[in-house]
C-alpha cells in the first residue's frame, strides 16, 4: 500500500467504517423493519464485491503496514467484526437480539475506525 499511514487509516474509515454502519445508524428502539435488516445484512456480510466487512477489513489491512493493524481501535474493530460474523445466521433470520447486537457492533466499528483515522491525521486524542 502506498500513500502513508494517514491515508491508510482514512481508507479503513471510509471503505469499512462508514459503510458498515449504514443501516445500523438508523436502528431505533422497537422492532427493526425488514428492509433495515436486509441492509444490515448487506453492510455486514456483503459489504464490497460480495465480501463480508470482516474480509474487506482484513484485505485492506494486508495492504498496509503492521502498524495499522496494531492500532488499538483497528484491532478492536477486527474483533468486533469477528463477533458479527458469528451472529450471521441470527441476523439473516431477523432474530431481534442478534440484529440489535449486530447493529451495535457496526456502530462501534464505525466509531473505532473513525477515531483511528482522526488520530492518524492529528485531529484526535
Amino acid at each position, binding site marked *: 500500500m*502506498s*500513500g502513508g499511514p494517514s*491515508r491508510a487509516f482514512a*481508507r479503513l474509515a*471510509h*471503505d469499512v467504517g*462508514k*459503510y458498515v*454502519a*449504514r*443501516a445500523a*445508524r*438508523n436502528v431505533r428502539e422497537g422492532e427493526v423493519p425488514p*428492509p*433495515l435488516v436486509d*441492509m444490515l445484512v448487506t453492510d455486514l456480510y456483503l459489504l464490497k464485491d460480495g465480501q463480508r466487512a470482516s474480509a474487506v477489513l482484513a484485505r485492506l489491512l494486508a495492504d498496509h503496514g503492521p502498524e495499522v493493524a496494531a492500532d488499538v481501535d483497528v484491532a478492536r474493530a477486527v474483533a468486533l467484526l469477528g463477533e458479527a460474523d458469528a451472529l450471521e445466521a441470527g441476523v439473516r433470520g431477523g432474530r431481534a437480539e442478534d440484529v440489535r447486537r449486530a447493529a451495535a457492533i457496526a456502530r462501534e466499528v*464505525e466509531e473505532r475506525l*473513525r477515531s483511528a483515522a*482522526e488520530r492518524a*491525521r492529528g*485531529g484526535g486524542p
Partner: protein
Amino acid sequence: MSGRARLLVVEDGHEYAEFARLFLSDVFDVHGTRTAADALAAVREAAPAGLLLDLRFDRTRPEDLLGDRDEVAARLFGGDRDRALRYLQDQQGTLVLGALRDAGVGAPAVFVHDFPPRRLHNLRRLYGQVEAVASFDAEAIRRALGVS
C-alpha cells in the same frame, strides 16, 4: 416523472442511492449517477433540489474521473501519475461538486464524511451550501438537505 423534488446522488458504487431510496424517497425522487459526466447530463435533464455526494471514487475507471491526471501530476506531484490518480480518486466528490456548481447547480450538497472544520469551511467558501454528515444517519442527512 414523479413531480417530487429530485435528489441527485453521485457515487462510485450503489450504497448511497440504496440508502437514499430507503430513507429519503418519501420526499425525494432519487436519481443515482456514477460519474461526473452522468451527473452533468442528469442536471441538464432536471434541476436537483439536493445533492448527495460520495467523496472517494476508487471504483471508477480512471478515464471516467473528472480532472486531468497529467496536469495534476505535473502541478502537484512532480510528474508522479500514480499519486495524481489517487488524488483524483480521493477528491473526486469535491471535483464533481465544482463541476455541478459551474453548471449552475446551486442545490445544497451533502457529503457523508467527517471533514475537519477547516476543510468544510473551505468547501463552503468555494461551493456555497455544503454540509457534512459524519455517518449514514438518515435524520441528520435529512436535516442537512433541508427536510424537516
